[in-house]
């Protein structure tokens, strides 16, 4: 049928021809490495700050889910996207928002439910987004944003605008029907979307071996004829390379990519202490930390001054953000 043939046409020959900006990152390039480190450290510092701030508020911390340990995925993806590409996230969204350019002040304010937050305090941590950063969903219902992200890609397919949508979700989402239905449709129409599964091998407290009949999430993608990759998040440059390929595939009419990225949570499912304590007992990933590894690499190469400078800058940035949020008023309803 005519319309199926049309779906396979090439939209652009070079993913860089849109803005002539290269998104390649080079290992060994000090500027790239320091930039990456500062973005990952920002996320880690911010999340630790949230954890500290909410230590005494168990009720509020129930609605907060930290990204500590998953930083390299958020940074790798956001470094590969253009400003007018789009993103959909789940409730574990702080890392992606910061990597995409959200500011500490309004982000912390939203988490604390203050009127100066990105959503005026009406969304909270789980639903915080800034539409001007191209973020079109932040969902608390597991997997609910996957069809929404696919719809954003459908819009790009209709408009032929070569924009790409990136959809972040955890391994727990892969047991939802919405995941499977979306992948089928995205593959059928070769929609310009990148599905990024942050596989920390947990759905809340349950290990993946206990809730799934499958051991490979990437293999699920191949059953829908989607180009699928399984990688570790330890080397951010590797992750970034895979994402760049996925971006190019999407922009040039090659359709969706499913990236299963193995990662780990350092601070449990929810931000409360009970959850973190429970998590500590089962986690075998504690010693693997891409951020720690990157820091050690930079130090071993003699860049301690740059690292310290970056960390001081970021610490100040995060503290100022916290101050701003603490001083802000609650919304009046």
């Amino acid at each position: 049928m005519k319309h199926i043939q049309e779906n396979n046409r090439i939209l652009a020959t070079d993913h860089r021809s849109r803005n002539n900006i290269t998104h390649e990152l080079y290992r060994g390039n000090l500027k790239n490495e320091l930039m990456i480190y500062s973005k990952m450290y920002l996320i880690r510092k911010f999340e630790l700050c949230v954890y500290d701030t909410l230590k005494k508020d168990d009720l509020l911390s129930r609605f907060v889910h930290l990204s500590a340990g998953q930083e390299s995925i958020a940074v790798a993806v956001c470094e590969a996207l253009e400003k007018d590409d789009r993103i959909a996230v789940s409730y574990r969204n702080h890392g992606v928002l910061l990597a995409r350019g959200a500011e500490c002040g309004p982000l912390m304010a939203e988490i604390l439910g203050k009127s100066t937050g990105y959503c005026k305090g009406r969304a909270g941590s789980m639903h915080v987004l800034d539409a001007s950063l191209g973020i079109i969903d932040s969902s608390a219902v597991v997997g609910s944003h996957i069809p929404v992200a696919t719809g954003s890609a459908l819009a790009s397919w209709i408009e032929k605008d070569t924009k790409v949508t990136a959809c972040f979700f955890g391994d727990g989402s892969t047991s939802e029907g919405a995941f499977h239905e979306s992948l089928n449709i995205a593959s059928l129409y070769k929609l310009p979307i990148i599905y990024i599964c942050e596989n920390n091998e947990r759905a809340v407290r349950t290990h993946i071996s206990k809730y799934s009949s499958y051991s490979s999430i990437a293999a699920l993608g191949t059953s829908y004829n989607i180009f699928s990759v399984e990688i570790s998040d330890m080397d951010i440059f590797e992750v970034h390379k895979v994402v760049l390929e996925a971006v190019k595939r999407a922009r040039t009419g090659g359709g969706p990519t499913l990236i299963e990225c193995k990662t780990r949570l350092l601070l449990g499912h929810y931000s409360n202490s009970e959850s973190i304590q429970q998590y500590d007992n089962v986690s075998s990933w504690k010693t693997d930390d891409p951020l720690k590894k990157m820091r050690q690499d930079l130090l071993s190469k003699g860049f301690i001054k740059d690292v310290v400078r970056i960390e001081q800058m970021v610490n100040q940035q995060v503290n100022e953000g916290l101050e701003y949020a603490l001083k802000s008023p609650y919304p009046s309803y």
Partner: protein
Amino acid sequence: MLLDIKERTYQYLVTEAIQNEMARDENVFLMGFEVSHYKPNLLEEFGPHRVIDMPIAELAVTGLAVGAARVGKKPIVDLIGTSFFFLAMDQIANNAAATKDLFADQLTSSLVIRGLTGIGEIPGGVHHCRMPHSIFMQIPGLRVVYPSCAEDAKGLMTASIRDPGPVLFMEHLRLYKSVATREIPSFIPLGQAVTRIHGEDVTIVAIGPMVKEALTAAEYLFNEGISAEVIDPRSLVPMDYETIVNSTKRTGTLVVVDEAHETCSAASQIISVISEKLPYVNVRKLTVPDINIPFSAARAWDKFSPTAPQIIEAVRNLVKDK
């Protein structure tokens, strides 16, 4: 396009509204299972990037519509039947309805979801006899539109597409092939009821296919010396309570006829709102019993759905007590 009068059906006029809006606004597009099969054939006119066939995947299809709407498109989603809306409930309630408020007006949700509703002439069993309009009325952020006749179908679909949304468009099975004989307005604003017949003795609010039953009842009642006022709300959210209140103030008696299960029906809602505003009026609702409707090859739809004789009986009793 000039059509034989036999062809100006409810179904055709809704399609015409969609066709006109797609021609008028390039952001409007159609998606759903077998939407390429519509008559007139919209695929031929608008191409496969605006008439998009989808697999049977109501949850994801609705979610795709939400996502497309969030980036500025205006999708019309055909979910075929309101029974299948239940498969899409997360996307309808948690995403479409919540978009505007949850993200503090950063994003919009201009989509229309259409589906066949109600008890057919041959009741097709539970999965095909859903009347869930009141369920969706209770979800903040949703608009619910329910045309009562072929003449209104076009104007209400047009308004639904142009509305900031999201809109659920209820199309009744027994009205689907009915033919328009009166004037066809091109645009009917949402939230505006219409008084079909003016009267002094009783206010009858009728929803969807019940308007026809109410008008039949009104004719008989008139011959008995009872003048009934029949109001057609046309949209259930936003609901024009003002028109109903003003009428009931005059008549003092309110009957609400709703082809829907009794518990938590739209009829219950209307009765409750009017009773609070006008505590001394006599009220009665006529609804479908709270049972799972069985399949009936004998076409026993009128054993379950309120009909004109029941309305006449109810009004007679109420007016007698006055």
